[in-house]
């Protein structure tokens, strides 16, 4: 366990679909909280263009893609370079039943927050019996 630096893990090529663009992809660090009515996902994705973030939910798979504008020019002279810059990409399999139409997302201060509301399960109903 490395506690001294925030590591961005380059996305493993095996579980991500191949891309047409070259360059590194990174896995954002993620927190997921399960609440009674929703799943709350927070992802650290600094430097993403908010309007270019794409969130897909298909067949129980949630995928997040955050394009990042390159900010490290190749001809720059680096005295220190501790992190790579590239798009964020991560896919989750969600076992809970999610109401895809009500998924909400916000991006602020480099953190993407996703609300995944659970499908309202059929409530137990009492059926009255009429006298014939």
């Amino acid at each position: 366990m490395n506690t001294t630096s925030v590591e961005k893990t380059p996305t493993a090529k095996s579980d991500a679909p191949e891309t047409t663009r070259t360059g590194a992809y990174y896995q954002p660090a993620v927190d997921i909280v399960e609440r009674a009515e929703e799943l709350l996902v927070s992802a650290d994705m600094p430097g993403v263009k908010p309007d270019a973030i794409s969130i897909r939910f298909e067949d129980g798979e949630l995928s997040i893609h955050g394009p990042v504008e390159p900010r490290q020019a190749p001809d720059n002279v680096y005295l220190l370079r501790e992190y790579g810059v590239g798009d964020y990409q991560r896919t989750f399999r969600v076992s809970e039943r999610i109401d895809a139409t009500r998924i909400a997302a916000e991006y602020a201060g480099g953190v993407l927050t996703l609300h995944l509301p659970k499908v309202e399960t059929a409530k137990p109903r009492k059926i009255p019996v009429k006298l014939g």
Partner: protein
Amino acid sequence: LGSRENRAASVEALYSGKKRRCAMSLIPWKSKQANGGVEVAPLAVIRDEMNRLFDNVLREPLGNLERMWGELGAWTPAVDVNEAESEITVRAELPGVAAEDLRVSIQNETLVLAGEKKEESTKQENGFVRSERRFGSFRREIGLPVEIDPEKVQAEFHGGVLTVKLRKTKAAKPHRIAVKTV
């Protein structure tokens, strides 16, 4: 930084407390009856206790330390520094850090980035399925390779990325000298 030392001190205290507790029960009092009337060699008892103590020391305090570091959020943001002809640019990725919790200063030709990534209220909730993000305070000191003008430092924080531009002083800029041929 002071708080980190305090925490370290409390870790130390916890560690020694644990040791003391173990030491107290090093040779537990046992009646013959408790062992089903079988006499146990005192040396064997000591050996067993020593083994247990050793295991505990190996396992627990390290486990505690690791967890404590995690709670401390020993978190160091990644930084890149690049140098152009007239300026030095420092960029750091600080997602989830509020601008008011961020302090940028220059002391003795060192750029200091300090601040705190405050835990969100959701961190208090139960039901964490995944917890990968780190929180807590951080401090980075970046030694500057050339003299810069402290009056002309610009810091910008946008989308979790901090950009600090430091202009070199005139003396620090490369000055080309024409070479005469005789």
